C-alpha cells in the first residue's frame, strides 16, 4: 500500500511539473485531450491496432528508473491495450544523441484492431504524461512507374564517345555520359559530368550508402561485389545476432517492414517495456514490386569495369574500390514500413556505418511547411480542409542520423540524407526531402528539360537525370538504365533480355532515379576527400554539391515540352517557364564537385581594369548571391568598390597586385510566395581572386 501511494505521489508530481514547465515557458495551459495532443489529422493511413505516443521527459525518466508498471498502468488506464513498449525496439548506440532528439520518449501502444485509432488516442491523451499522440502511418515510396527491361537487340543508338569502363551496356547510359547523339532531341552535356571525375576517383569501399527502399538484390552479377557485407552475420549462425548489433542475420542490411509485428515477443510482450537484445526481421526481399531498390542501388554503385552490365557513379574502377550499398528495406511489394519502422531504419543506418542515406521515398501528403511535417495540422486545399499526418518520430530519427556525433566517415562530419522531390508534377517537393537540412532532387531528361512528372519549386535543392519515357513502344532509351530484378520483368512489355536472372538490366524513370545520382556523386565526393586526406562538415559538403551545377534555367525561359502522359496515353504540352528557377540550384556536375573538394578555385583578374570573370565553373552564376569579402582581401586586391555579379560574370576591379577570397552566399528551396512556408537551405561558395598585371582567360600562369 505504501509503495502504491509513493507511485501515485510521484505520478502526481510528474503531472504537476509538466504543467508548471509549460506555464513557465509562457505557453498555454496544457489540455489533456486528443485535439490538443494529436500531431496529425486523419487516421486513414494509420496501421490498425497501433498508435505512437511521446511521453514527457519526466515520465520517461521514471520508466528508466524502473517504474515501468506505474507509468504504463496510468497511461493505459481506460484503454484495452495489448502492448506498450519503446517505439524503437533496439536501443540506439549513441544514447546522448537519442536523448537529444527525444527518441527515448516515444512508445508504441498496441490495442484491439477493431478500436479506432482516434478512440485509442483520445484515451491516451488524457494522461498528463503523454506529451503527444501520433498515428502510426506508413511511409510511401516515390514509385517510378514500371520497369522496362533492356533489349540489347532492339536498341541500336548509343553514345558515340568511348565509354570509360568496359561494362557491357555503358554506352546506353546517357545519364553518365551524354554527347547528344543518343537521340535527336538529346543535348550534349545533359548528364552528370562524371566522365572526367572518374579519372580522379571511382569511389571507396569505406563509403557506405544506405538505400532506404526495397531490398538491393545482393546476388545480382553487377551488385554482388558492391553490397555492404556484415561479415560477422554472413559467417555466423542463423537466428543469432552474431555481431551483437541488435539485429539478427542482418547480412547485407535489414528488412524493417513489419519487423515489429514479426517480433511478437516484443510487440505483444508482457507490457514490461524491456527492449529486446536483438530483433529478427523477414529476409531481405528484392523481388517484390518493380525492383526499385535494386535499380536505385545500381545507379550509385554497380561495379564498374567488370565487363558486365552497367557502369555506375561510384562503383569503383574495377579494383574492388567502389562504395558499398547497405539495404534498409522499408518497402516490400505493397507493404510499406511505418513511421516507427522507418525511424528504426535511420537508427540502424547511423549505428552501422552508413554516411549517406539514399531515400527515394516521401510523404505524398500536401505539406506546405516544415511545421506541418513535424507537428501536423490542417490546410485548405481548394476550399476543403485537409488533415496532415506529420512525422515527428521519423524526423527525430533522421536528426539522429544526421547528428555530427554519429558521423560514419573520416572525411565527413555529419552524415548526409538525400531524398526524391516526388513524381506528382506538383510545384513543391514532398517531405522529408523539403526539410532545410536534407537534399531534395528534381529530375531532367536527356534534353535537359524537366521530366513531366517531377515536382519542382519550394523544397527542391538540385536537379539530376531522371529520364522520361518518350511514348514510343519498346524504346526506353530516354529513361535511366540500371540493374533490375526478375520482379520487374513480370510487369514489363517489350522484348526481354535475360529475364528473371541475375543479368537483368532495366529502364526506369522518376525522381527516384534522379535522387541516387546525387547520392552517388556525394559518395564519390566523400571518397575523393578521403583520397586527399581532407575532412568536411555536412554543411560544407552540401554547399560544394549545390554549387557544383550547370545552369538549367537557360532551357526553361519559354516554350513548351511534350510530356507523354502514361495514364492518358497521349502527349500533353507543359509550359517550360513554370520550372524556371524552380529546379534547385542547377544540374548536378560531378567534375565540378570534385574540383571544389580539391580546393578553393582561383580566378585571374587583370590589375587596374574592370574584368568580367565567368563563374560557371564554380557555381550556377545565374543564381542570386550575396557577395562578401573581408577587409584583408580588399586591401590586398586594392578594391575601391565591392565586386558584383552580372549576367553570370563576376565584375571586379583590382587596383593592386595581390590575392583575396570572396564568398558567395545564397539559399535554395524557400517558398517565396508563402510566409512561414517551406524553409530554405543556405549554401556558400568561396573563390580566390588573383590580381596580376596581366591574366589569361584560361587561368594559366604565364
Amino acid at each position, binding site marked *: 500500500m505504501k509503495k502504491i501511494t509513493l507511485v501515485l505521489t510521484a505520478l502526481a508530481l510528474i503531472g504537476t511539473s509538466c504543467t508548471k514547465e509549460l506555464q513557465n515557458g509562457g505557453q498555454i495551459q496544457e489540455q489533456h485531450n486528443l485535439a490538443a495532443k494529436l500531431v496529425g489529422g486523419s487516421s486513414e493511413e494509420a496501421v490498425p491496432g497501433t498508435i505512437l505516443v511521446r511521453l514527457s521527459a519526466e515520465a520517461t525518466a521514471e520508466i528508466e528508473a524502473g517504474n515501468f508498471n506505474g507509468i504504463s498502468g496510468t497511461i493505459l488506464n481506460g484503454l484495452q491495450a495489448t502492448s506498450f513498449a519503446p517505439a524503437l525496439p533496439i536501443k540506439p548506440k549513441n544514447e546522448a544523441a537519442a536523448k537529444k532528439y527525444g527518441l527515448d520518449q516515444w512508445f508504441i501502444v498496441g490495442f484491439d484492431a477493431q478500436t479506432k485509432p482516434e478512440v485509442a488516442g483520445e484515451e491516451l491523451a488524457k494522461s498528463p504524461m503523454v506529451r503527444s499522440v501520433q498515428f502510426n502511418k506508413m511511409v510511401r515510396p516515390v514509385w517510378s512507374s514500371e520497369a522496362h527491361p533492356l533489349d540489347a537487340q532492339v536498341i541500336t543508338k548509343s553514345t558515340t564517345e568511348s565509354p570509360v569502363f568496359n561494362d557491357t551496356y555503358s554506352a546506353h547510359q546517357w545519364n553518365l555520359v551524354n554527347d547528344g547523339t543518343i537521340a535527336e532531341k538529346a543535348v550534349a552535356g545533359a548528364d552528370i559530368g562524371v566522365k572526367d571525375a572518374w*579519372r580522379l576517383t571511382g569511389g571507396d569501399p569505406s563509403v557506405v550508402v544506405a538505400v532506404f527502399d526495397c531490398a538491393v538484390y545482393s546476388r545480382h552479377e553487377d551488385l554482388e561485389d558492391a553490397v555492404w557485407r556484415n561479415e560477422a552475420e554472413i559467417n555466423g549462425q542463423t537466428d543469432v545476432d552474431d555481431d551483437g548489433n541488435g539485429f539478427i542475420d542482418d547480412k547485407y542490411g535489414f528488412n524493417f517492414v513489419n519487423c515489429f509485428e514479426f517480433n511478437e515477443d516484443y510487440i505483444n510482450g508482457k507490457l514490461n517495456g524491456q527492449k529486446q537484445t536483438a530483433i529478427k526481421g523477414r529476409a531481405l526481399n528484392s523481388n517484390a514490386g518493380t525492383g526499385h531498390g535494386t535499380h536505385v542501388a545500381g545507379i550509385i554503385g554497380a561495379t564498374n569495369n567488370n565487363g558486365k552490365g552497367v557502369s555506375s557513379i561510384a562503383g569503383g574502377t574495377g579494383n574492388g574500390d567502389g562504395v558499398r550499398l547497405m539495404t534498409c528495406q522499408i518497402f516490400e511489394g505493397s507493404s510499406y514500413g511505418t513511421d516507427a519502422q522507418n525511424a528504426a531504419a535511420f537508427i540502424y543506418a547511423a549505428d552501422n556505418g552508413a554516411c549517406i542515406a539514399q531515400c527515394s521515398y516521401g510523404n505524398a501528403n500536401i505539406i506546405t511547411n516544415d511545421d506541418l511535417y513535424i507537428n501536423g495540422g490542417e490546410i485548405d486545399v481548394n476550399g476543403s480542409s485537409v488533415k496532415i499526418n506529420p512525422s515527428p518520430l521519423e524526423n527525430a530519427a533522421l536528426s539522429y542520423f544526421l547528428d555530427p556525433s554519429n558521423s560514419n566517415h573520416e572525411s565527413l562530419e555529419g552524415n548526409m540524407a538525400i531524398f526524391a522531390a516526388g513524381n506528382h508534377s506538383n510545384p513543391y517537393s514532398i517531405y522529408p526531402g523539403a526539410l532545410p537540412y536534407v537534399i531534395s532532387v528534381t529530375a531532367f531528361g536527356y534534353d535537359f528539360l524537366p521530366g513531366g512528372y517531377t515536382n519542382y519549386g519550394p523544397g527542391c535543392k538540385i536537379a539530376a537525370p531522371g529520364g522520361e519515357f518518350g511514348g514510343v513502344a519498346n524504346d526506353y532509351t530516354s529513361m535511366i538504365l540500371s540493374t533490375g530484378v526478375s520482379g520487374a520483368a513480370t510487369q514489363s512489355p517489350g522484348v526481354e533480355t535475360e529475364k528473371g536472372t541475375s543479368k537483368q538490366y532495366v529502364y526506369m524513370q522518376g525522381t527516384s532515379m534522379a535522387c541516387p545520382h546525387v547520392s552517388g556523386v556525394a559518395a564519390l565526393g566523400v571518397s575523393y576527400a578521403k583520397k586527399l586526406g581532407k575532412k568536411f562538415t555536412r554543411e560544407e559538403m552540401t554547399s560544394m554539391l549545390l554549387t557544383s551545377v550547370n545552369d538549367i534555367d537557360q532551357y526553361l525561359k519559354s516554350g513548351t515540352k511534350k510530356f507523354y502522359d502514361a495514364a492518358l496515353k497521349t502527349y500533353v504540352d507543359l509550359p517550360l517557364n513554370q520550372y524556371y528557377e524552380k529546379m534547385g540550384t542547377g544540374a548536378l556536375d560531378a567534375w565540378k564537385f570534385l574540383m571544389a573538394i580539391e580546393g578553393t578555385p582561383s580566378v585571374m583578374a587583370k590589375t587596374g581594369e574592370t574584368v568580367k570573370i565567368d563563374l560557371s565553373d564554380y557555381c550556377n552564376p545565374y543564381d542570386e548571391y550575396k557577395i562578401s569579402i573581408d577587409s584583408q582581401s580588399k586591401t590586398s586586391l586594392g578594391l575601391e568598390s565591392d565586386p558584383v555579379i552580372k549576367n553570370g560574370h563576376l565584375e571586379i576591379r583590382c587596383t593592386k597586385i*595581390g*590575392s583575396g577570397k570572396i564568398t558567395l552566399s545564397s539559399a535554395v528551396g524557400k517558398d517565396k510566395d508563402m510566409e512561414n512556408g517551406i524553409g530554405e537551405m543556405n549554401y556558400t561558395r568561396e573563390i*580566390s581572386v588573383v590580381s596580376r*598585371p*596581366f591574366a589569361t*582567360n584560361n587561368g*594559366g600562369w604565364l
Partner: protein
Amino acid sequence: MVIMRKLIYIMAAVLTLAACGKKPDNKTELTLEQQLCGEWHSTSLAIDADIYISFAENKTFEIYQQITEGAHRLYRGTWNLEGTLLTGKYNDGEDWAAAYDIAIEGDALTLTSVNDAAEKSVYKKTAIPEEVKNGCAVVVKSAI
C-alpha cells in the same frame, strides 16, 4: 719508385687542370635556349603561388601551378625564344598573357614581363617532384 710517385702526381695535376678548364668552355658553348630547357621551380613571385615549369627541347612546355587550389593544375602548350624574348601559346589556342625577357644566371631563371617590368618572377632549376606530377589534376581548361 720515387720517380713513379712523382709521375702519378703530375698526371693527377694535369687531369685536374684539364677538368677545371673544360667546365667554363662547356658553359659558354650552351645557348640560352639550351640553358632554358629543363625543369624550374618558382622562388620569387608577386603573389603566393607554387609554380613548376618544364621547357622541353621540342619546344613544348608544361606548367604545374597551384595558387589556392588543393592540387597543382597542369597546363600544356608550345614556347618560342627569339634572342631573349620568350613567348608561348597554350594548347587551347590562347597566347600567354605576356612575352618575357629572360635571363639565366647559374641555376636561376628570371622572367620579366615586357608589358610590365614590375611583373618579375624568379625560378630555380629543380626537378619537378613526382608527387606534383602524379597528384596533378587533369588539365582543366587548356586542352591536352
